[in-house]
């Protein structure tokens, strides 16, 4: 194994490949920062360029764009409360609060460090135990996926604002939006009203940008008018302090592990990973009430999770030849055009490519850290640009992101409508994040549920007969019930302590 790794590092550390990895990381960071633009489209654009390179260098570059994009995703979430990627929605909750309190630098820095640790961890796993982990991923069939998504949906419990009913309604609203489009299982067009532009459903980015970006601009306008928007607190330090780092290292590590294993599952993805890790982190915390008010752990864990997930998604591609969806599907296409058959024999037949790529990922993560570190400082200063200039420009850039998805007017119109709804919801105590969670998980959850039932010939028992599925479902129930149990035991303990003190 170590000889393979050394071999790979040897390939990666040629001047050309270092240069290529650097360019890839840079491009990835840029598209990651720009809201609405994702790695998938960028990789597709880069394809013609990389075909003139040797296959190994080509893949090094494409992979660098892919994991680089995850590094940049948190930036807009933190600075302007607009998620750059679907995997950075959760980061908005605590990240933007931190920025308003003058801790934008810490938030950006912790997401860079977390990303680095997570990225490196996933390469290490990929290097040493890639194959067994990939085999484990195949054990996930429709029944297991349904339970996983149900588990994911339970994380909504930690995203509730003041009203639980409203949070549930927000989630259901997201799930409803997910039902628009052709139903995969039956082929029936649902809620499309004969409009072909709705056949593929409502894209997540359209809703996210609409709800977050448009409403943010209006709300800032109101706050400026009424004077409610105080001066953004001048940051004391543009970087993270050592104490803050120590405080968040646990979150980073937990986020990394959760993110990696969710990312390995084909189709589950970085977004679910980030929601799950945020939820778990909040539940583990001694003082969960600080989450949502600018807790650094609320940035550290989802940002580590989404990076670990993007590394994890490469694993089934390399070891099994199965794309995890989105960007990895384009990379699979690229492999074929480079005359490399993606499949389980990739490691044996194209050792140069696989190990070169893995070697380059160690380097790439380091490059990204080096690249992002000065950017932290630069981006943190963006907070001092007056909102009256910053927000309109961000809005225009976000709109381009939406437009670039499929060049459709329908997307823009949906974005406008979501803006109105998002504004109303924010003004009236409906949390926005559950809408997006519902939208992301809804379609896949319904699909896996019905796929599982087709396979089991209609028997609902399938969900509890499969051990992985059963475990996840029990976990979900515990997750919902646990806070109440913990609360009661805490009250009980407090009462007992109080009585002890009286006796003493």
């Amino acid at each position, binding site marked *: 194994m170590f000889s393979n790794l050394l071999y790979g590092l040897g390939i990666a550390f040629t001047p050309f490949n270092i240069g290529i990895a650097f360019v890839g990381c840079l491009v990835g960071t840029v598209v990651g920062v720009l809201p609405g633009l994702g790695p998938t489209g960028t990789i597709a654009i880069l394809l*013609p360029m990389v075909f003139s390179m040797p296959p190994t260098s080509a893949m090094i570059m494409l992979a660098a764009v892919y994991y680089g994009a995850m590094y940049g995703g948190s930036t807009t979430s933190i600075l302007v409360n607009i998620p750059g990627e679907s995997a950075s929605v959760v980061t908005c909750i605590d990240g933007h609060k931190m920025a308003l309190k003058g801790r934008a630098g810490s938030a950006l820095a912790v997401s860079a460090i977390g990303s680095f640790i997570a990225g490196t961890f996933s390469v290490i796993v990929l290097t040493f135990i890639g194959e067994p982990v990939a085999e484990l991923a195949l054990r996930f069939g429709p029944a297991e996926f349904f339970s996983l998504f149900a588990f994911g949906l339970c994380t909504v419990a930690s995203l509730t604002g003041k009203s639980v009913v409203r949070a549930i309604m927000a989630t259901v609203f997201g799930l409803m939006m997910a039902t628009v489009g*052709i139903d*995969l*299982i039956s082929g029936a067009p649902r809620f499309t009203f004969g409009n*072909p532009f709705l056949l593929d459903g409502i894209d997540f980015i359209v809703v996210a940008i609409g709800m977050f970006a448009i409403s943010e601009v209006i709300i800032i306008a109101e706050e400026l008018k009424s004077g409610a928007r105080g001066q953004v607190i001048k940051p004391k330090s543009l970087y993270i302090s050592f104490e803050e780092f120590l405080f968040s290292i646990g979150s980073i590590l937990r986020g990394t592990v959760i993110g990696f294993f969710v990312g390995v599952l084909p189709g589950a993805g970085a977004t679910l990973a980030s929601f799950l890790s945020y939820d778990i982190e909040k539940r583990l915390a001694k003082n969960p009430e600080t989450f949502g008010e600018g807790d650094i752990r609320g940035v550290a864990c989802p940002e580590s999770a989404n990076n670990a997930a993007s590394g994890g998604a490469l694993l089934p591609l390399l070891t099994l030849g199965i794309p995890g969806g989105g960007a990895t599907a*384009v990379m699979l296409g690229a492999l074929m055009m480079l005359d490399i*058959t993606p499949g389980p024999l990739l490691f044996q037949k194209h050792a140069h490519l696989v190990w070169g790529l893995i070697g380059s990922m160690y380097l790439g993560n380091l490059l990204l850290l080096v690249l992002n570190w000065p950017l932290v400082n630069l981006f943190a200063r963006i907070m001092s640009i007056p909102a009256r200039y910053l927000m309109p420009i961000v809005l225009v850039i976000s709109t381009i992101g939406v437009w670039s998805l499929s060049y459709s007017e329908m997307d823009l119109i949906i974005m406008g409508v979501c803006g109105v709804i998002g504004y109303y919801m924010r003004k009236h105590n409906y949390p926005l994040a559950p809408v997006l969670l519902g939208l992301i998980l809804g379609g896949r959850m319904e*699909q896996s549920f019905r796929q599982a039932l087709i396979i089991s010939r209609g028997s609902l028992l399938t969900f509890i007969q499969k051990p992985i599925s059963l475990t996840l479902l029990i976990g979900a129930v515990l997750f919902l019930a646990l806070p109440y149990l913990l609360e009661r035991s805490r009250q009980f303990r407090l009462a007992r302590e109080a009585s002890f003190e009286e006796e003493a």
Partner: protein
Amino acid sequence: MRRIALLSVLVVALAGFLVAIQGSPAVAWEPKKSIEFIAPANPGGGWDTICRTSARVFKKTGLVTKPAYVKNMPGGSGSVAIAYVVEKRKGDNNLLVAASNSLTFSMAIKRTPYTYDDVTPLAQVASEYGAYVVRADSKFKTLADLVKALKADRKSVTFAGGSAPGSMDHIKVALLAKEIGVDPLEVIYVPYQGGGEALASLLGGHVDVGSLDVSEVAGQLEAGKVRVLAVQSESRLKGFPNLPTAREQGVDVVFTVWRGLYMAPGVSKSAKKFWVETIKKMVATPEWNAEREKLGWEPVVKFGDDFEKYVKDEHQRYKSLLKELGFLK
């Protein structure tokens, strides 16, 4: 000194360029601005590959000198793109759109109100074949085993494919069922979001048989993880001569997946002629054929009126097929 040399090189180059422009034979129509490809799907799929490969071969071989862009316009198996092209891009001579049987299915099942009459079909550039695939350790060794199991109990086998019921991967299963005298609607078929997910589910042992394209499983085949029971081609594939066809095992199921291009309605005759000729030249180049082989596509081509007639016939055939199979009332 150096500057003069550089300058003279520039002058010579410019002169050469001017001569080249002047000297080129007058053609009836040729593109004067950049070419736009529309891939009616997300990056990474078959349609996207047609566009990007053609664009690259155009550039490499110099068949088209103007730059070419690829725009992805996913939605409803081509319905979104065809609606856009018919409604917004009438008469655009610089626009090429990728297509395949999936588009015909969208038309047949009335997902889109437009048909091939509303656009300008150009050419088929390649074809591909599907196969019935099982895990290497499956109890089905040959197609006959599968047929026997289906005949004994039509609900005993779970099929998987990468598209919704009533479209391509499912039709391949339905055709098999129809051929061996089992009601196609009663065969268990699990649709997945794309061939990759269906393949993962097959490898994980969650389903029994996958209805997948041969090129999708090439890597797994090489590693011995899966076995192809039968390919749905007329004769054995050039790229995979070891795989048996369904026909040679006595089950007459042939299903060709074509990959091609169409243009907007109302394009000028000379532009259509130019593109048909250019694509004809393109598919003959070694550059194209090298790419095509890598993708596992077969060299079956049709052009202009031939192609137009073929797809229009296909539309009618699919309509009656879907009615026959019970997907269309």
